[in-house]
Structures are given as C-alpha cells and as structure tokens.
C-alpha cells in the first residue's frame, strides 16, 4: 500500500536519531581541535631528517649529504650543501654532513622517493598535518634545524618501520664492528707475526 | 472615518492611475494588485469582511497570477516599445472620454440627495477607532452569507459554479497549444 515505505523510512531516521544519543559508536564526528584522530601508521606527508640523539640534533644527523635524494626528488624541492669537514657517523666512520639541508614543503608532493633512495636511513616521512602558516614563502621552506627529528620520534610515529630500520642499522653496525674486529685481529696477528717481541697497541680501542 | 475612506480612495486611485500609465507591464500588474488591496481595504472599512478576504484571495491570489503568467507568456516585440503615432491621439481622446463620463457621473451623484435613501437613525460615526464598523450598520457574518448562498441564492451559486467550470475548461482549451507538444499547462 502507498505510504508503508514512507513510514519505514521515517522509522529508519527515528532509529538513527535515538541511536545517536545512546550509542556513541554511531557518532563518527571527531571534535577536531580538542580531539584528534589516531593516524594510521602508514600515514605520511612530508619528509624529516632522523637524528640519533635528541639532545644534539645537529651533531647526530644520519644524513651524510650524499645528495642522492636531491637528485631523485621529482619536484626538486630538496636543497643540500655539503659540509667542508667530516665527523664520525653512527658507525664511527668519518662522514660528510649537510651544512644546509632545506625542503620547500610548498613544492614537495609527498612521493617518498627521497626515503626510498636514501642508503643511510637518514630521511623519513613525517605525520604532521597542522603546518599551515601565514607566510607563504619563508615559513614553508624548512631548514635543517626544523627538519631534524629524533629517532625516538620516528619510533613513535612509525614503530614497526623504525624497529626494522634500527635492526638493520644494528646489524650493519655489528657487521662493521665484527669486520673491524676481525680486521684488527688479523692486523694484530700479522703484526704479532711480523714483530712478535714488540706489541703495538691496536688502532681502535 | 471619512478620512480613512479618503486615504483608501487616494491610494487606490493613485496606484490604479500609475499602473495604467506605466510602460512596464509587470510593474503595472503589481501596482494594480496594490490597487486591488486598496479596494479590499475599502470593503474592510465598509464592514464587509468576507468580501474583503475573498477579494484578496481571488484577485491577489488568483487573478494576479493569471495576469503575470499571461504577461510572461506574451513577450513583447520591439515594435511595442515604440510609441506609435496614433497612440498619443488615442490617449488624448481616451482621457477626454473618461473625464466626460466622470463629469456626468459626478454631476449625477452630487445632484442627488441621498438623505432620504439613508436608513433612519444611523448614529454619528465614532471617530478614531480604526476600521471597526458602526454598530447599527448592516452586518453580514459569514454564517449569514452562507445561509443566503444556500437558500435564496442557491440557484445563482450553482450557475456560478457551472460558469467557473466552463470558464476553466474554456481557458484551458483556448490557451493549450494544438498539436502533440501541447504540454503547456494553463495557469
């Protein structure tokens, strides 16, 4: 009969209306500035630079200024100047570091290619989204200091990925140490064989 | 009381005069509607409530819509906006005719003594009470009107009903387009 469908429809809306009061699961709205959604782990927008140590961000950048990312970046939003001097990196090897590292986020298209190509796990994708500014030019060009974020922060936003990276780095470091130790042992043995009476101290402690 | 009448009359006449002299048809139609409101106000002033509302309902609600639809359905061509040479002459002769008729009518009214027509014992009109009718004035409540419509004037009511039906059908037939695409509804 005419009208039954209409009544059913009214029933549906009434159910929703009543339900929205007693069933909080129905309300999907997040009241944003006070409440924020939990972002999915794979969420990403702009890159940041990983530092090992939060207390000395500039000193412990993983980046070695190899400029691969700068070359690979499709919109060419990365600008890097190499340092003149070297300093030891995480494995203790002396490396160059970026004297200037800037990303123009107004140009960046969040493609993650820089992350993919980085051989040093030094650049990763961030999850910030409240980055609107009133200045179109200078405030959107992020410099080295603004980009650097600690490894702990990285763990916080991408825990699984960060754990993998750390494991890989640890493995590399361990391999490097073993290699160094083996090399040292070999060198020591050779030295011992060459000059057995005089024992030279090893190069690295 | 009389002042109210004069006000109503001036309003009605002014809007009607302007309406009939404007070149913009829509404006004239809307002004005429205002004039019809004035006439409804006159009915209210005279204590004929029902007629006043019927006037508003029929003229403002229905006839005005028909007029406006007709105006929109008959777009004027360029030639209409030009003042034709004969129209000035016609206007002058029209005004003369109108004034002549008004003169005759007015003379007739002013020369007639209405005193003997008026019902005896009409009390002086209370002033300053808006449009409330005089107490002893003839009243026509809706009930009276309904009773009369159904008894004395029942035949007339039936005929009016038939007339309206026929007029409606006639209007539809006249205005409907011939041919298969006659989808246009008569307002």
């Amino acid at each position: 009969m005419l009208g039954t469908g209409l009544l059913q429809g009214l029933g549906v809306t009434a159910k929703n209306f009543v339900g929205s009061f007693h069933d909080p699961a129905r309300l999907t709205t997040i009241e944003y500035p006070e409440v924020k959604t939990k972002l999915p782990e794979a969420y990403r927008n702009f890159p940041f630079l990983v530092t090992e140590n939060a207390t000395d961000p500039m000193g412990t950048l993983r980046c070695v200024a190899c400029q691969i990312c700068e070359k690979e970046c499709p919109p060419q939003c990365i600008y890097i100047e190499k340092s003149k001097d070297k300093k030891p990196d995480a494995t203790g090897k002396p490396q160059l570091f970026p004297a200037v590292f800037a990303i123009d986020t107004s140009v960046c298209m969040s493609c993650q290619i820089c992350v993919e190509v980085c051989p040093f796990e030094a650049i990763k994708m961030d999850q910030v989204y409240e980055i609107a500014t009133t200045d179109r030019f200078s405030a959107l060009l992020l410099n080295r200091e603004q980009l650097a974020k600690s490894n702990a922060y990285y763990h916080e936003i991408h825990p699984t990925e960060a754990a993998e990276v750390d494991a890989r780095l640890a493995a590399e470091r361990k391999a490097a140490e073993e290699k160094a130790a083996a090399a040292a042992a070999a060198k020591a043995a050779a030295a011992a064989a060459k000059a057995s009476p005089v024992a030279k101290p090893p190069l690295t402690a | 009381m009389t002042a109210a009448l004069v006000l109503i009359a001036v309003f009605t006449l002014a809007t009607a005069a302007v309406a009939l002299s404007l070149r913009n048809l829509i404006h004239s139609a809307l002004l005429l509607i205002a004039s019809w409101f004035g006439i409804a106000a006159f009915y209210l002033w005279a204590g004929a409530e029902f007629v006043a509302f019927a006037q508003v309902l029929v003229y403002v609600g229905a006839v005005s819509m028909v007029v406006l639809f007709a105006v929109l359905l008959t777009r004027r061509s360029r030639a209409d906006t030009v003042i034709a040479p004969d129209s000035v002459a016609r206007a002058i002769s029209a005004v003369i005719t109108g004034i002549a008729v008004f003169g005759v009518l007015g003379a007739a009214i002013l020369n007639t003594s209405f005193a003997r027509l008026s019902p005896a014992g009409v009390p002086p009109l209370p002033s300053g009470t808006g449009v409330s009718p005089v107490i002893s004035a003839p009243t026509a409540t809706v009930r009276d009107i309904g009773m009369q419509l159904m008894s004395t004037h029942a035949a007339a009511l039936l005929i009016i009903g038939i007339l309206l039906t026929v007029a409606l059908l006639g209007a539809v037939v006249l205005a409907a387009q011939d041919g298969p695409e006659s989808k246009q509804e008569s307002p």
Partner: protein
Amino acid sequence: MSLDPLPLCLLFSSALFCLGLIGALARSNTILVLLGIELMLNAANLNFIAFWRYGPVTSPATGVMFVIFSIAVAAAEAAVGLALIIAVYRHQKNIRLQEANRLKG
C-alpha cells in the same frame, strides 16, 4: 459638496470606473485593456458595497452577495480573457488590440 460617506464612496467608485475606462481606451496592450476592464468591474462592486452599507435597508447581505458573485464572474472573465490573449498572441505574435481586427466586415 457634502461629506456624507455615501456620495464619497460613489465618487470614489466612479473615479475608479473612469480610470479603468481611460486605461482600456488609451492602452493598446490587450492585457492592460483587460486590466482596465477589471478595474471597471471592481468599481461597480464598490457601488454595491456602498449601497449595502449606507443605502436603504433591503434584505440582509444582498449587496455582499452581489459582490461575491461579481468577483466569481470577474475571475472567470479574467481567466478566459487572458487565455484569449494568449491564443491571439500565438496567432499574430503580438497583443496589440488594434491589430486584432481581421474579422471586420
């Protein structure tokens, strides 16, 4: 000139009537002519009400009754008239009254 309401009403209605007449005579647009005629009809209605209100006492509400019927007839007249205008417009592509004279003798 007396200030009795009845002559005033009658003057008012005759003025309205003449305005309608002038409009109907002067304008060439058929719609306006029709509206002028409507005004004349309304003027006649004013007379009914005026005489009902101030005239000699007749059977109750006769004037009102007349006006009601007159309004109904006027509505029918307007509907048919405007339908005619539309038909004429469709025929001769304008609605000037003086051009609608093809049936003259």
